[in-house]
């Protein structure tokens, strides 16, 4: 499964994604502080409340708008204050940055970081 994900990612991104640990998945439930529909990548900035009550901020990298459109995304899909749950591959460096794997949107849709299985 991990190998399959890696192959899929290799097809979606325009450069190496080896910054991210694709063998690890982290679930981040939080509040969107920004959604940047930009090139070469889109980004979700997310405040995630921790168990201690302190909020940890995460930067989540996505594909580009072109690739995201192919997976059903729209540029207005997220806005400040939206609640989402994202499953991500964290940075190997330990910083609070990650690559999106999939996300549950405020309206309940589950979107991925690219068009899985498209030929």
């Amino acid at each position, binding site marked *: 499964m991990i190998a399959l994900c890696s192959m899929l990612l290799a097809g979606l991104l*325009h450069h190496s994604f*080896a910054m991210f640990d694709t063998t690890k998945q982290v679930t981040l439930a939080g509040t969107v502080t920004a959604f940047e529909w930009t090139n070469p990548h889109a980004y979700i900035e997310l405040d995630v409340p921790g168990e201690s009550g302190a909020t940890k901020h995460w930067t989540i990298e996505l594909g580009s708008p072109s690739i995201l459109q192919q997976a059903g995304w729209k540029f207005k899909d997220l806005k400040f204050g939206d609640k989402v749950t994202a499953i991500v591959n964290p940075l190997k460096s330990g910083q609070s940055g990650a690559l999106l794997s999939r996300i549950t949107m405020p309206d309940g849709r589950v979107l991925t970081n690219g068009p899985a299985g498209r030929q």
Partner: protein
Amino acid sequence: MRRAEGLGLRAAVVLAIGLIATNAFAQADLTGVWAPYRGGRGADPALAPPPATPIVLKPQYAAPFEAKRKAEADAAAKGEPIASGAVACVPYGMPRMMSVALYPIEILPTPGQITIVTEAFSEVRRVFMNVPQLPMGDVPPGYYGRSVGKWEGDTLVVDTIGIKPSVPAYQNMPHSDQLRITERLRLVAKDYLHDTITLDDPGVLEKPLTYTLAYRRLPGYEMVEFVCDNNREFIDDKGGTHLKVRER
């Protein structure tokens, strides 16, 4: 006499129809947007790209290339992949631009020229039709070089020279300013296009190599813009790639 004239006219009409039909067959309509097609499970193998021939470098280039590949693999394992130009939003150039991840390309034939626009990085290359190629040393080395094209039956043959050595080629293999790229573009089925690319570089390659890119037509697709204005990835002093993470 009149009968002979009638026969002559009939022959001319048949010949004209034949020429039109031949021409229609000869020059396929490549106009439109095409997405990379890699086949995969359930796909018709005849439409997927055939395997590439190996990269056979001259001995003096082979060892450094292998060492570079190993260094790249080691850096990736550490989580600091060695940056490609794309990390810094530098365009790919030829031949890499012809297939970047899942990004489509658009082919725009006009009289005397075929223009190819890519979605990734909005790259543009121009193929000048039915004109001679310049001598190798007369084209200033750049990202796209100079491309000339002609139809050979149903195949568009494009010759490109003038690619500077710092522009990455197939699988980042080294090349010199003597690189010659020969492309043969042909519809292998309705709405499926193959671009068979041969790279020849007598200074670096022991023998030419050939690989094929396959595409599927995307009717109605509207190409989207790609302006690299929010690049949060950066390259450190050692060439490793990192992501700028925001505090808030």
